[in-house]
C-alpha cells in the first residue's frame, strides 16, 4: 500500500489526505499546530457558529465534514503538534539514483508543545509526500514597526477568531489585498473599533485588476460571495476603506499610540504633504503572503518565476514522488487550496489523471487561479514603498538592522552577494531566520547593488525549518549513528 505523507493540515492538506485515502493509500497527515484547519480554519470555535459569525467562518461545514471524515478513517493517521524540522535523503536509498521514486526522503518530526521538554522524535520514510505548508503574511517595514501594538494581519485575525480577543481598542489595518477585509471584520466582531482599512493600491489599479472581467470572479463562486459579504459588513459598520494609502510610521512611548498615514502614488511611493496622524493603539499589517518553501527547497523542487513551488496539472513537483498544493503553489484562497489538495492527494496515491472525479477539481482550480492572478495584478507590491523608509527604519527586527546600515554596507563593500551582505549586516540572521524580513532584505539589497544580486542563494533556503534544541538533536544518538531501519520508525529521545 502506498504510504502518503501530507505535511500541513490546512484546507489543502485536509483535501489531499481525504483524496489519497479514497484511493486506498495509507495516509499520515501532520501539522505543527495544536489543531487541524490551517491558517483559515484552525481558529474556529468548537461549537457551531452563530448566524452572525457565518461570514467569518467561511466554509465551516466543509471543514467539519473533512475533519470528521479523516478522524473516522482507519487508514488515516493524524498527528497534530507535529513539526517537520528537516528533510534529508534516506541513507538506505541515497545512492539508488534518480529513477527510484519511493523511500527517497527521511522526514524528521518533533511532536509535542514547542516549549515543552519532552517532544517525541519521529522519522517517517513515506512513498510519496504532499507539501501543503501554506504561507505566512508578508509585512513591509516602516518606521516604528518594532513597537508593541504592531501586528501582522494573520496574527491579529488568529487572536480575534480563536480567542475573541481584539489586538487593541482603536485599530488601523494597513497593507494590500482582499484579505485585509476579513481581518477588519474579525476585529470588529471581537469588539475593536477599526478606524480604517488602508489599501496601498490606488483605485485605478484596483479597477484594472478587478473590474474588466467580473464574470471570472463569478467563476469562483465562494470567493465572490465572500467578498461581497465583507464589503456589506464594512458598510454596515462604517469602517472607512481607503485606497492609495498606507501607514508609513507608528509612534508612541514604548508602544503604539499614533500612526502616520500617507497617500501613495500608483507606484506606492508616499506623496509629499499628504500625511495625517491618527490616534490608535494597534495597527495590523499585511502585504500579501510569502509561501513556506523551505521543505520543497530541501527536496530540490523547482520554483516558478514568482517563487512558488512549480507544479504540473497533477500537482506534481519536479522532485519525483513529491506533490504540492495550496498557498505554496500560488495565493488563491481557500477554494483553490481545496481543489489543489484533492488533486495532489489523488496523484500522490497513484490515481490516474483522467478520472472524472478530478475534472471538477480541475475546473475549480482553474477558476481560482484566475482569481489569484487578479489579486497579484491589483494588490502586488510596488517598488515605490521603499521611499517611506528612513535611514533609522529597522529592516530586520530580530537583529535590529536599519535601512541605513544596509545602504552603507552595500556601498562600502560593493558586494553583489546576498550571503556576504547578510553576514556583514546580520540582516535576516536572527531567530526568525528571515521569515519576516527575508524577501524585503533581498529586494532592498538587490536595488542597492549596482547590477543587482547575483548569487544563487535565497532567504527561503533553511535546512533547519524550525528551531530544535541541541538536546533534541543529539537525542540518544550513538556515535556514529546507526542507520534507521526501513519503514516508519519511532523512538523516544
Amino acid at each position: 500500500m502506498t504510504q502518503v505523507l501530507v505535511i500541513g493540515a490546512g484546507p489543502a492538506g485536509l483535501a489531499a489526505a481525504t483524496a489519497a485515502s479514497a484511493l486506498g493509500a495509507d495516509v499520515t497527515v501532520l501539522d505543527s499546530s495544536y489543531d487541524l484547519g490551517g491558517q483559515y480554519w484552525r481558529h474556529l470555535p468548537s461549537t457551531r457558529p452563530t448566524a452572525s459569525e457565518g461570514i467569518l467562518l467561511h466554509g465551516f461545514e466543509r471543514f467539519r465534514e473533512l475533519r470528521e471524515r479523516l478522524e473516522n478513517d482507519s487508514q488515516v493517521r493524524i498527528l497534530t503538534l507535529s513539526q517537520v524540522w528537516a528533510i534529508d535523503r534516506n541513507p538506505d536509498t541515497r545512492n539508488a539514483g534518480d529513477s527510484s521514486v519511493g523511500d527517497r526522503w527521511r522526514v524528521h518530526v518533533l511532536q509535542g508543545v514547542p516549549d515543552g521538554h519532552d517532544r517525541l522524535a519521529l522519522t517517517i520514510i513515506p512513498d510519496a509526500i504532499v507539501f501543503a505548508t501554506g504561507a505566512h503574511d508578508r509585512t513591509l517595514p516602516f518606521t516604528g514597526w518594532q513597537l508593541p501594538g504592531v501586528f501582522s494581519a494573520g496574527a491579529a485575525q488568529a487572536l480575534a477568531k480563536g480567542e475573541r480577543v481584539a489586538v487593541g481598542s482603536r485599530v488601523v489595518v494597513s497593507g494590500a489585498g482582499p484579505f485585509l477585509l476579513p481581518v477588519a471584520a474579525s476585529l470588529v466582531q471581537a469588539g475593536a473599533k477599526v478606524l480604517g482599512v488602508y489599501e496601498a493600491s490606488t483605485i485605478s489599479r484596483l479597477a484594472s485588476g478587478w473590474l474588466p472581467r467580473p464574470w471570472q470572479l463569478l467563476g469562483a463562486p465562494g470567493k465572490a460571495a465572500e467578498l461581497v459579504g465583507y464589503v456589506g459588513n464594512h458598510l454596515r459598520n462604517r469602517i472607512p476603506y481607503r485606497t492609495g494609502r498606507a501607514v508609513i510610521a507608528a509612534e508612541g512611548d514604548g508602544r503604539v499610540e499614533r500612526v502616520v498615514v500617507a497617500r501613495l502614488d500608483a507606484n506606492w511611493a508616499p506623496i509629499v504633504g499628504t500625511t495625517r496622524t491618527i490616534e490608535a493603539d494597534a495597527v495590523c499589517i499585511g502585504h500579501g503572503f510569502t509561501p513556506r518553501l523551505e521543505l520543497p527547497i530541501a527536496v530540490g523542487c523547482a520554483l516558478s518565476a514568482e517563487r512558488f513551488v512549480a507544479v504540473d496539472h497533477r500537482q506534481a513537483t519536479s522532485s519525483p514522488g513529491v506533490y504540492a498544493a495550496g498557498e505554496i503553489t500560488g495565493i488563491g484562497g481557500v477554494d483553490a487550496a481545496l481543489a489543489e489538495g484533492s488533486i495532489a492527494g489523488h496523484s500522490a496515491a497513484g490515481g490516474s489523471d483522467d478520472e472524472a472525479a478530478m475534472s471538477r477539481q480541475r475546473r475549480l482550480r482553474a477558476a481560482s487561479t484566475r482569481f489569484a492572478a487578479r489579486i497579484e495584478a491589483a494588490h502586488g507590491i510596488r517598488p515605490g514603498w521603499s521611499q517611506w523608509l528612513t535611514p533609522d527604519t529597522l529592516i530586520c527586527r530580530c537583529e535590529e538592522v536599519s535601512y541605513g546600515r544596509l545602504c552603507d554596507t552595500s556601498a562600502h563593500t560593493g558586494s553583489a552577494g546576498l550571503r556576504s551582505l547578510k553576514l556583514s549586516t546580520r540582516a535576516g540572521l536572527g531567530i526568525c531566520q528571515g521569515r519576516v524580513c527575508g524577501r524585503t532584505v533581498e529586494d532592498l539589497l538587490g536595488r542597492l547593488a549596482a547590477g543587482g544580486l547575483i548569487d544563487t542563494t535565497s532567504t527561503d533556503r533553511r535546512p533547519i525549518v524550525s528551531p530544535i534544541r541541541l538536546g533534541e538533536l543529539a537525542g540518544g544518538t550513538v556515535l556514529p549513528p546507526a542507520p534507521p531501519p526501513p519503514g516508519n520508525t519511532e523512538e523516544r529521545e
Partner: protein
Amino acid sequence: MFDVVVIGAGIVGAACARKLAMLDRSVLVIDSGSTAGGTSSQGEGNLLLSDKAPGPELVLAQYARRLWPQLAADLADELGREFPSIEFDPKGGLVVSTTDVGASPLLAFAASQRAAGVDAQSISIAEALEREPDLNPAIGAAVFYPEDAQVQPAIATEALLASARLHGVEVRQGVEVTGVMVDGSGSVVGVHTGRGDIPCGAVVIAAGPWSARVARSFGLLVPIRPRRGMVLVTSRMPHRIFHKVYDADYVGAVESGDAALQTSSVVESTAAGTVLIGSSREQIGFDDRLNVDVLRQLASKALRLFPFLHEQPVMRAYGGFRPYMPDHLPLISADLRMPGLWHATGHEGAGIGLSIATAEMIGAAMTGTFAEIDASPFSLERASLAPFLVEAA
C-alpha cells in the same frame, strides 16, 4: 592591460590582490559569483595554532598569526567606522580530551607544539574550569592556547577587498574564467572569460575548492578536492563560552585523509551572541544537501563539552566545501608548467587564517623578494604532491 588577474574573490584572492597592489602591480580580481560568496562565507573564522602539528603548515600559521593584529588595525584605519568590524578577537583556545585514552596523546601533542614555539599551556582541570565554568568537568586533560584567535570570515574578506580597491584593485563579480591565453612559448598572456578575453601578465588561481576545475580549463591537473563541512548555529544567549573550546579528537579529524564522515566539536560564541558548533568533514564531492546524521553528531559532541547547551535551540545549519589537498598542505606556488601562472589555494580548513600569510608569500615570490618563511613546502614541485600530479590512466 593588468599585470595580474586573480581568479576568485574569496579571502585568499582578496588578500593576494591587496598585497600585489601594495607592491604596485595593477590587479583585477574576477569571480564567477559574488565577492565572499564561496567557502569564505560558508565556514568559521578560527585562526588556530592549536590544531596544527609541528611542520610547514604550523610555521605558516604562526607567520599569519603574527600578521593578523596589525592587519586588523590597518583595515579599521583604512576603511573607517562605517565599515563593519572584522571582529578580530584573540580569545584563546582551550583543547580538552573528553576521554581518558585521549589525555596522553593530547599532552604529547602539546609538548611537540611547545618545542615548535607554540604557547601551549597544559593546565589542570580546575584551571580549565576557571576559564570555562560551564565546561563538563569530566575531562581527562586540558591545554590552553592563548594565541588562538578568530575573525568574522565574510567581513574579513570584504574588508580585504575594500582595502584592495583603495589600493587600486578592480573587482568584477559575475564573470567566469573559462580558459587561459598563452603565447608561442606557452607563457600566460591572458584569460578567457564569459565576457570576453582579458590580457594580463600573470594569473593567480585562488578559486578555493573549485581551483582544480579552473586549472583543468587551463589543461592542467591540480589535485584539489572538496571536503564538505557543516556548522550549527544556536539562537543568541548570554555569553557563557569564553574561548574556542574543542575536543582533542578534532586534531585527528583535521589530519585525517579519510573520506568518511568525521565530526569534532569546536564550540565558540560569536560577537553576535550565537554559539557556533562545527564542524564535520566529509568527502562527498560538491553535494550540498543536508544530512541530519551529521548534525546529530555535531550536537552530541558539543553537549559532551557543554552539557548546559542541552536546552539551547539551534536555529540554522550551514556549510561549505574546504579546498582539500591530498598531502594536507596548501599550494602557494608558481606553476612551472605554464610560466606566469600561480596557485594560491588548497588551504582546506585553515584558509581564513592562512590567507594573509599566503598573500605575503605570493607577493614575495612574484616580486622576487625575500620571503619570511621557506616557500618550498608549499610548492607544486614538492615530493609529496608528485603522485597526485599524474593523470590516472
